[in-house]
């Protein structure tokens, strides 16, 4: 075979079979074993937890159950709506605050007063205000991501190296050129940071909101398993939330790589 293919194969082999991976596998296996034995030997804390062996049984039952996947769909839908709304409102707001000093002055202090309130503290107000449970959950999700997005966009857009905007002006740019060709691309990394962090918060809020007030979704599944005494299903619910959250962040990272080719290489 060609040496190139061989080298690539070697590289792959090195990537998979090395000490780091081995050690990681060992420790994860050890943890699983401890968890399993914890239930059998009634170790403190672990005693009450459903053991991995019980969980596997539940997983097989759930994977073929369409209702389980409907919960995934419900959570994703909420996340998407709240998250997108936060981007659509937050990014322009952050950019506006960064580009107009007067607007920054007038809005920033009000913004900073509201920001430290944890998003979940808004739940009751949101329930009172919005007509349906669904819309009130969406509103809290929106709030969770919104503040992070605005702060990140604002920070990114305000910290653009003045040399870039000045160089652009010297080269004959109009204000619209400066905004679209300089400010926007220069803020893009911060926008994506904000999105990634916001996505994390979004999932936290979705889970909590579904537990408190939901009728469907992965958070609801987890909570109802607890209420219904189906303890292994709690862990499956948690795992599903973890995987779903991870997939969402991964999607954002992927989008970031596509949108910012100049950061890709080094």
């Amino acid at each position, binding site marked *: 075979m060609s040496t190139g293919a061989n080298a690539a194969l070697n590289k792959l082999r090195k990537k998979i079979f090395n000490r780091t991976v081995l050690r990681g596998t060992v420790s994860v296996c050890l943890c699983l074993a401890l968890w399993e034995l914890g239930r059998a030997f009634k170790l403190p804390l672990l005693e009450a937890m459903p053991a991995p062996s019980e969980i596997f049984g539940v997983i097989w039952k759930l994977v073929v159950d369409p209702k389980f996947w409907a919960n995934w769909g419900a959570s994703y839908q909420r996340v998407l709506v709240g998250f997108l709304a936060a981007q659509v409102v937050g990014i322009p707001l952050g950019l506006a605050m960064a580009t107009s000093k007067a607007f920054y002055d007038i809005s920033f202090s009000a913004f900073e007063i509201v920001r430290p309130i944890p998003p979940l503290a808004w739940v009751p107000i949101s329930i009172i205000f919005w007509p349906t449970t669904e819309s009130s959950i969406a509103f809290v999700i929106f709030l969770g991501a919104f503040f992070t997005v605005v702060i990140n966009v604002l920070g990114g857009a305000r910290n653009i190296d003045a040399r870039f905007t*000045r*160089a652009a002006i*010297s*080269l*004959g740019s109009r204000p619209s050129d400066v905004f679209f060709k300089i400010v926007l691309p220069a803020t893009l990394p911060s926008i994506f940071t904000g999105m990634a962090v916001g996505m994390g918060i979004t999932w936290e809020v979705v889970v909590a909101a579904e537990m408190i007030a939901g009728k469907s979704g992965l958070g609801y599944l987890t909570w109802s398993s607890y209420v219904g005494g189906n303890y292994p299903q709690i862990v499956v619910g948690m795992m599903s939330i973890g995987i779903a959250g991870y997939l969402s962040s991964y999607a954002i990272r992927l989008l970031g790589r596509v949108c910012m080719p100049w950061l890709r290489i080094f």
Partner: protein
Amino acid sequence: MAEATNAPRRAEVTVEGLTKRYGYHPFWHEVLADCSFTLRDGELTVLIGPSGCGKSTLINLLAGYDKPDQGRILLNGAPVAGPGSDRLVVFQETALFPWMTTYGNVAYGPRVARNVPKERVDERVQALLEKVGLQDFKAKYPSQLSGGMQRRGELARMMINDPAVTILDEPFRGLDAMTRELMQEYFVTILEERSQTVLFVTSEIDEAIFLADRLLIMSNRPGAILKEMEIKLPRPRNKDMLQTEEYLGYKREALEVLHAEAIKAFAGGSKSAQDFLEAFHKEHVEQA
């Protein structure tokens, strides 16, 4: 030649009594105080001064990014109101836009000007990239280029706009000694060829004398022009000239002035002035 413009543009910049303060009373810093000088048409003027003396402020004022508190700047007799494409700044280190390829960076000026047909832009960009030896790198992003290549990219981006006045703000800062030397020789050939009005700002005395037609020495905060020197080394310049008696004479003369300034800067708490003072002490006071 790509930038075969019709007639050579005349550009003379006169700076009169420029004063600029930052902060608030009584804590304001008077960065420039009654600073006056002229950039003559077609001449390469080098401005040198201790670090933190207000050189960057002066550049911002000249380019129109900032407004002076007193005094005025005249370009061919007309006052400067704001930034304009007749004056172009090449910034410290590099200000190539990291999100554009080399090609995109060089083509930026004509693209936003929107008055040159696309093919013509392409032709000029290609020619300029070739001239600075970056034709193979036009699809690369600035972070993929070496320090020297980034500086040449800047040069191409500057030349395509063909500004009447070019302001270079310590463009070689952050390069290693060898690249720096190569870049100095490279820039001097290009600038000699263009023979337009150029203000080159630096804090390195050797670099300053090597490049200059005229040397302006700036005082420490608040900045003003302390001394003007005509550098009459023959052109085209080369590095061998740095050994001549004539050059050493210029250097000595400039250092005397800078030394007095560095003492003041040091007294004002500047860290880098300390190095300068010691260097001067070694080279001149002990020699005597």
